[in-house]
């Protein structure tokens, strides 16, 4: 059998393909984004799509599964918040073909706005949840999830997390098996799928009966595994937490749960009989621990020593369980003494001049989810909130309603193109409908940037690069009823300040769309073509070391300390330096320099 190294996400995609999946939908979100990309690039038998948001992705998968085929939706943890509405009720209706929702958690918030533990959704919605630990399990559990889905007529959650989704390990490759469920829509099933009260009450009972059956199934589930070694201590764990613990304490006994909801009650009872003391090791919430304690068992250690926030690691598990006996490695250099290296906007990025303009205007900027959230960091510090996809638009409207005329000229919302289409259209409708006066700026960089360049309804291409309709933001704004719609060139700082200043001051809804400002890494949009010169250099005869250009935090510009003076005799404490390998010639710094000290470089 062929073994290949696969990322967890690629293994989920492979599992879906081997399980005979025909439709898969997702909205990109770290750490889940590669699942749909892999499906689109590798498996022609599956129809893939980037949905505008996770709610739509789940609905697309549900509609497809209702015809009898197998379908999947994938998202990051906060994506399931967006999709919660269809998800919670699909738990009542059940499905026809298998339906799996992949939800990828992000403990330690490597790239997210919160750290929620998605296992709670399984208990909340009363659906089963599987949790793989590595690539092989990602593939196997995905296939198993479809079997469970069809066997019990329920959507199934597959929970991964950053260290599973973005880890690579060997995966044995299998073949695709087509499903045999007849395909078609049957109006006879209507009471099962029309969730009006009379039908809901019927399904409500089915859900409870299903949970009972699933509990019995969990006791026989082949990926709930007991490993009896030294019986002094037994660990109940799942996913990557199991791997960390096994790494540090290989001699202990284990109950590794492949299914984290519902729990295998008989198996847990048997484990408690076999070992003297039980420790529960899990990341984030005391999910297993609470349930196990509620069953009446005494847990020797759990969240009393294991942290309930951030991610675990072999070190943290060892330190937590050994307590004072843990010997930390020797500190040779204090890492906190070293300069940090936070992510930064790319050299030439169109967000940089726009946020510089907003800063100069002194605006309170309601922000959103995307690369531009980086504008909150010093020295730009020109973005003041970031809650969830689309929140900027509604929050700016609410703030303007609260502030009244006091807010005019001082507040705006900024939102990326992909984020706007995900969750910004509905609140923009609200601004117009409820006679608001807030200003919304769409930072259109022609792609979903931060998650690694996924297409969306505004790019003109599908996930498989087929040409498709491209949304025109100005036309959309008009249709919503906005009268004041303006275009800006974000690279023109003065122009931006004028237009944004005017629009923020207007007592009516405004929409501003950034034009000709593609992501620096989006090759097909040829982002460098608009720049006249390949790079710029500092004329050290003129640079006074005023540090104004450092305010934009361009990765190509750095400070060089050293006393000296300009050609015309101005004393200075240093000069700036432009790294020509990094400079793309965007001319943002040249607009800021008051001394004409930044000049075109010669190749």
């Amino acid at each position, binding site marked *: 059998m062929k073994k290949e190294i696969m990322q967890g996400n690629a293994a989920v995609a492979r599992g879906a393909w081997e399980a005979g999946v025909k439709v898969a939908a997702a909205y990109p979100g770290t750490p889940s984004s590669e699942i749909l990309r892999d499906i689109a690039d590798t498996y022609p038998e599956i129809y893939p799509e980037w949905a505008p948001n996770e709610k739509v992705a789940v609905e697309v998968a549900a509609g497809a599964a209702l015809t009898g085929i197998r379908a999947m939706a994938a998202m990051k943890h906060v994506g399931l918040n967006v999709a919660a509405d269809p998800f919670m009720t699909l738990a009542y209706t059940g499905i026809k073909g298998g339906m799996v929702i992949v939800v990828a958690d992000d403990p330690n918030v490597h790239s997210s706005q919160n750290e929620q533990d998605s296992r709670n959704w399984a208990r909340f919605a009363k659906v089963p949840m599987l949790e793989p630990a590595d690539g092989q399990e990602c593939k196997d559990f995905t296939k198993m999830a479809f079997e469970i889905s069809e066997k019990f007529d329920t959507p199934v959650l597959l929970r991964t997390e950053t*260290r599973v989704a*973005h880890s690579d390990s060997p995966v044995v490759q299998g073949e695709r098996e087509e499903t045999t469920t007849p395909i078609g829509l049957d109006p006879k099933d209507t009471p099962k799928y029309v969730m009006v009260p009379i039908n809901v009450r019927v399904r409500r009972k089915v859900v409870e009966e299903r949970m009972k059956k699933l509990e019995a199934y969990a006791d026989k589930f082949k990926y709930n595994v007991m490993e009896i070694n030294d019986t002094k201590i037994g660990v109940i764990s799942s996913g990557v937490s199991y791997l960390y613990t*096994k790494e540090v304490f290989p001699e202990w006994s284990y109950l590794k749960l492949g299914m984290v909801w519902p729990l295998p009650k008989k198996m847990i009872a048997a484990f408690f009989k076999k070992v003297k003391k039980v420790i529960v090791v899990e990341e984030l919430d005391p999910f297993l621990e609470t349930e196990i304690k509620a069953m009446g068992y005494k847990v020797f250690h759990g969240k009393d020593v294991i942290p309930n926030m951030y991610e675990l690691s072999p070190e943290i598990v060892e330190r937590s369980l050994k307590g004072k006996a843990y010997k930390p490695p020797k500190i040779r250099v204090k890492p906190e003494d070293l300069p940090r290296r936070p992510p*930064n906007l790319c050299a030439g990025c169109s967000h940089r001049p726009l946020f510089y303009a907003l800063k100069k205007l002194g605006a309170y900027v309601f922000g959103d989810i995307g690369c531009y959230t980086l504008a909150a960091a010093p020295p730009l510090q020109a973005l003041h909130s970031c809650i969830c996809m689309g929140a900027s638009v509604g929050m700016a409207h609410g703030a303007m309603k609260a502030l009244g005329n006091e807010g005019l000229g001082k507040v705006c919302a900024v939102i990326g193109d992909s984020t706007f289409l995900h969750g910004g259209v509905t609140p923009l409708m609200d601004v117009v409908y409820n006679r608001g006066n807030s200003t919304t700026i769409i930072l259109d960089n022609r792609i979903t940037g931060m998650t690694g360049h996924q297409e969306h309804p505004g790019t003109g291409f599908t996930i498989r690069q087929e040409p498709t309709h491209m949304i025109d933001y100005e036309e959309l704004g008009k249709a919503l009823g906005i009268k004041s719609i303006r275009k800006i060139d974000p690279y023109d700082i003065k122009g931006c300040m004028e237009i944004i200043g005017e629009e923020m001051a207007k007592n009516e809804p405004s929409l501003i769309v950034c034009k000709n400002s593609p992501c620096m890494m989006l090759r097909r949009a040829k982002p460098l073509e608009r720049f006249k010169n390949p790079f710029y250099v500092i004329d050290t005869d003129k640079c006074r070391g005023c540090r104004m250009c450092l305010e934009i935090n361009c990765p190509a510009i750095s400070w060089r300390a050293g006393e000296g003076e300009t050609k015309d005799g101005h004393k200075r404490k240093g000069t700036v330096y432009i790294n020509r390998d990094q400079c793309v010639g965007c001319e943002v710094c040249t607009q800021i320099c008051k001394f004409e000290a930044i000049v075109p470089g010669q190749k």
Partner: protein
Amino acid sequence: MKKNIKKNGKVTNIFLSGVGGQGTILASNILAEVFLKAGYDVKKAEVHGMAQRGGDVTTHFRFGKKVYSPIIKYGDVDFLLSFELLESIRYINWVKPEGKIVINNQEIFPPAVNLGMAQYPQDVEKAFKKYFKENVHLVNGQEIAKNLGNMQAANVVLVGAFSNFFPEIKDEQWIEALKTLLAPKLHDLNIKAFYEGKKAL
């Protein structure tokens, strides 16, 4: 090879660090491919997402008979392979006392240094040598790659240098992995980069 594995049940921990865009992830993919084909169990973990925007990038790579955790335990690194000086010293405490270190001799300033608010650490090599003596190796990856005509190949130069620590793996196995992972038009350049790197250490 199978025999070797039986004799040596221990897991080898390789920690790679660098800056987004330096090719750290490709380098770790090469390692994973090579050691999988050589008959080992392998696991590799990295963080994507915001790290792509010029932030620090780290990859944990582990191989052995059976590997559980995808993450190396703090203090258990056998080999530190770093693509940038500041990103090497940041992880000095992770390395075992007898660990081996290969560092690309390149400085990439983080924002605080660019702004003149922090100092780029001086004497990174000295700090490592104080603790690890002759086990510290600096490689001029950029210079070597530039001479080959493409700075982008610096990561493979480093992999070439690093390959010296694994005499049981033949050159062909490394080259095979390079070919599997890179587009055909990049093969010649990277094979040269691998051999030049190998000579550099």
